[in-house]
C-alpha cells in the first residue's frame, strides 16, 4: 500500500483530483481510498487529503501519518510546517512550482522531487489557476501508481478534453529535480 498526502488550497480542486485517482485505480482493479481533511472548506484556506493505493482491500479509515508521497498543488504552502511533515525516509514529493530545489527547502529524508508548472499550464489553457488536472498528469508519470490512460480517461470524463490536454502537457513537462 502506498500512502499519499495531498496539499492545496480551497478552490484548487484537491478533492476532485484525488477522487479521479481513486476512480482510475479502481478501474485498473486496484484499491484506492481518499479522505479529505477539512479545516474550513473556504477559498484560499489550506486543504489536505489522504490518498491510499493498494493491491489489497484498504480497511483502515484514518489519516496518513508517514506519507510515501507528497503532492503539493500550491508551493506557497511549503512555509507551513504541516506540509512536509512526516514524509517517509526516501519518500517523494510532486509539486506544482517553478521554484528551484533550493528554494523548496525540502526535508532531509526526501528521496525524489518532481516539479511541474501546473499553474502555468492551467493559466495558459484556462486563464485561471486550477492546477489539479495538470498535477495529476505529473503524478501519473512520476508515481507509477496509476495507469496513465485510465486516469486521463477519468479526467476527460469529468472535466473535458482540455483538462486531458493539461494533464498530458504536465506528463511531458514534469521534471525530477532531485532523484
Amino acid at each position: 500500500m502506498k500512502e499519499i498526502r495531498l496539499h492545496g488550497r480551497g478552490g484548487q480542486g484537491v478533492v476532485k483530483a484525488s477522487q479521479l485517482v481513486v476512480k482510475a485505480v479502481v478501474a485498473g482493479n486496484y484499491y484506492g481510498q481518499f479522505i479529505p481533511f477539512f479545516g474550513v472548506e473556504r477559498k484560499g484556506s489550506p486543504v489536505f487529503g489522504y490518498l491510499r493505493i493498494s493491491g489489497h482491500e484498504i480497511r483502515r479509515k484514518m489519516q496518513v501519518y508517514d506519507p510515501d508521497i507528497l503532492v503539493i498543488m500550491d508551493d506557497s504552502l511549503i512555509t507551513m510546517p504541516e506540509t512536509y511533515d512526516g514524509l517517509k525516509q526516501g519518500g517523494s514529493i510532486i509539486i506544482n512550482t517553478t521554484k528551484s530545489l533550493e528554494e523548496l527547502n525540502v526535508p532531509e529524508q526526501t528521496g525524489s522531487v518532481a516539479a511541474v508548472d501546473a499553474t502555468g499550464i492551467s493559466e495558459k489553457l484556462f486563464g485561471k489557476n486550477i492546477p489539479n488536472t495538470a498535477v495529476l498528469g505529473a503524478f501519473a508519470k512520476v508515481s507509477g501508481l496509476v495507469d496513465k490512460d485510465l486516469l486521463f480517461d477519468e479526467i476527460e470524463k469529468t472535466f473535458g478534453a482540455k483538462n486531458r490536454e493539461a494533464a498530458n502537457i504536465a506528463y511531458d513537462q514534469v521534471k525530477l529535480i532531485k532523484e
Partner: protein
Amino acid sequence: MSYIDVLREAKDQVTPGMSACQGCGGELILRKALQIAGENTIIGIPPGCMAGAGVVGWNYANGLKIPVHIPLLDNSAAFFSGLSQMYQRKGRKDTNIVVLAGDGATADCGFQSLSAAAERGEKLLYICYDNEGYMNTGYQRSSTTTKGSRTSTTPIGSVVKGKTQQQKYVPLIIAMHNVEFCATASPSNMADFVAKVQKGLAASKNGFAYLHVFSPCPTGWGYAPDQGIEVARRAVKANMFPLWEMDRGEFKLNDENRKPITIAEFVKGIGKFKALSDEDIAAIQAMVDHRFEMLKRLAGK
C-alpha cells in the same frame, strides 16, 4: 456626519483577514454594521458563512474585537433575548445586542425563534444578511431563494430546473409583528444602509428591531466578484429588493423607483439564473410587481 464620514471614522471590529470570498456581500455588511454598532456591542452570529469565515473564531484565534457567540442555527433570537433581558436587568441598557444571521438561520431554521422574539418585543437588533441560500454548507436552497435559482438542492436537471417556489419575503412578515422598527437595506445604497443600522440600534433600545439586507454572493450566485454592488443595485432598481422601512407601524418607501428595470435585466449575467425560462421570468416579474404594489399601498401611496 455623512455616512461616508461615519464609515471612515468608525473602527473596524472585525479581523482584517477573514476567509469570506473575494467580493462577498456578507463581509461588507458585517464590517459596516459593526463599525456603526461599535465596541459596546455583543453580537451573535449563528452558523453560516459569516461564522464559518472565521469571524466567531477558532479556539484561541478569534475573528472579532467585540464579544461574540455562535448560537445554534435555530435559536439566535431566543438566546439573545435572554442575554438582552440580563442586560436590561443589569441596568446596562446602552449595550447593543445584535444578531447577524443568514437567511437560513433567519427565514428557515430559526424562524420561529425570531418570530417569537419579535412578538415579545425583545430589545435587540436582528440583522439578516440574505444571500438567498445556505452558502456555508454549499449553497443549498433557502426559503428566500428566488424562484428558478440553481442551488445544490434545486439543481438544473433535465426534468426540474431550479427552485420551484417564489421567495419567502421575510421583512414584510416581520413588519406584521408589531415591532419597533423593520426595514430592508442593500449594500448598494450605503447611505440608506448606514442610516437604517443607526435607526435599528436606536430602536432596539425600545423593542425589537429588524433589518433585512440584500447580500450578494459571487461564489454561490455565479457572477464576477467585482460585480456585487452592481448586482445589488440592479436588484433594488428591479424592485427585486425594494427599499422601505417601518417605524412603529408607519411604512415608508425609501425609493419609489419610478422607472424600474425589468427582472430580465436584473438576472442577466448571474449564473444561478441561467436556466430561467421566459415563464419563470414572467412569474418573478409578476410577483415583484405585486409585492411592490402592496408596499406602495402600505406606505399610503
